[in-house]
């Protein structure tokens, strides 16, 4: 039942160019983009869903009550985004699957999240490093997606971007606080950034699916977001008196379903109840 990776039809590019030139996008062309759009919405939704699920693992375990509240609230915002994107993905797919179905009844190979978000929480500094890198990227992505030619995506982005700004600010404040803090907090922050740095490149990669949607004005060229991201990260690390991490070899593959072992474990926890009791309702 897992959706397979959609292939780009030969007509897609020409249609996309036509739509772009005409500044509009009619239903016939939209049908051509169906598979690509479905996949793109899974990517957007799965990033939020998986990171949201990871953050809920902190609930009741965070170093202080205020941090517990912060991480749980960010997780909640992300799960809210996931719900909007995945419901829309189900609508676009048109096979009767809603957001819950896509979240709880899909197997690991069908998930399209980037590798960064599925990584275990580690210590608090690692969680902050991951959040900082992700929210900084997501903020610039959503700012641009508010101009998407697909008004449904634009509406979700406009709704969520205000919350993401808050996440990015919280995470960067903590990077500074830990980096410019005690010897131990600094060491942990450096370690956290070093570890997650290898997952940064993947967040800015794009493929034929996203390029065709970008030409149609639906998606955003992720590569264009990189410069702003590097500038923001550089500024925050300077405030935190931290060095830029060395560039390790980047790890990629999440967008085409090549995940690490951690995602399977996360899904086992997240999907256990609805899969064991498929008829359960709140």
């Amino acid at each position: 039942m897992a959706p397979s990776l959609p292939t780009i039809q030969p007509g897609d590019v020409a249609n996309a160019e036509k739509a772009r030139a005409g500044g509009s996008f009619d239903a016939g062309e939209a049908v051509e983009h169906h598979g690509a759009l479905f996949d793109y919405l899974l990517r957007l939704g799965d990033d939020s869903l998986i990171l949201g699920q990871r953050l809920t693992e902190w609930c009741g375990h965070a170093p202080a009550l205020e941090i517990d509240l912060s991480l749980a609230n960010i997780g909640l915002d992300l799960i809210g985004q996931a719900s909007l994107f995945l419901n829309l993905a189900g609508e676009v797919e048109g096979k009767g699957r809603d957001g819950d179905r896509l979240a709880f009844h899909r197997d690991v190979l069908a998930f399209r999240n980037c590798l960064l978000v599925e990584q275990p929480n580690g210590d608090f500094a690692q969680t902050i490093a991951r959040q900082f890198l992700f929210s900084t990227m997501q903020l610039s992505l959503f700012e641009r997606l508010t101009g998407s030619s697909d008004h449904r995506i634009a509406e979700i982005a406009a709704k969520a971007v205000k919350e993401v700004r808050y996440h990015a600010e919280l995470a960067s404040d903590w990077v500074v606080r830990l980096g410019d803090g005690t010897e131990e907090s600094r060491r942990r922050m450096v370690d956290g950034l070093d570890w997650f740095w290898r997952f940064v490149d993947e967040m800015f990669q794009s493929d034929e699916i996203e390029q065709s949607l970008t030409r149609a004005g639906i998606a955003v060229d992720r590569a264009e977001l990189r410069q702003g991201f590097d500038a923001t990260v550089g500024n925050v690390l300077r405030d935190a008196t931290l060095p830029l991490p060395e560039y390790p070899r980047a790890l990629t593959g999440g967008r085409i379903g090549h995940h690490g072992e951690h995602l399977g474990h996360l899904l086992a926890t997240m999907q256990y109840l609805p899969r064991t009791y498929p008829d359960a309702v709140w």
Partner: protein
Amino acid sequence: MVSEVLDDAVADRIMAVLATVPDPEIPAVSVTDLGIVRGVRCDPPVVTITPTYTGCPATLVIEASVRAALDEAGFADVGIKTVLSPPWTTDWISDEGREKLRAYGIAPPPKGAGSRSLRADSPAECPRCGSLHTQEVSRFGSTPCKALWRCLDCQEPFDRFKCH
């Protein structure tokens, strides 16, 4: 003309019903005070509501409460439609709603700040003693819409409604 007048009267009655529906997490204010109700259309009869925060668990409860209140008041045929756009902002909280929040012990968000950021640059006014000598304790509070603050004069902790 007659039907339009009737429709207006019906819309007013529906809004009056909705004004009695409390927010599930801040029961001191109603869903109309918070600007969650975006409008009433009469043909076909539909109430338009918008979520405050994307992941706010109260959203489902609010819809259920609005449904129950409409049914109870004899408006079972009035539908409910959820819209995302334009996105909700704290600027839509009515003046009356702001007063109710303050009386309840929650510092209301400054007006006009919603468009830019969730964070207000100005200090919150302590809802108990009115002092501006206050400090943010935690950027996230007990619900998605609130941050934790404390008053440095009267020493009381309080919630501040985030600018959104």
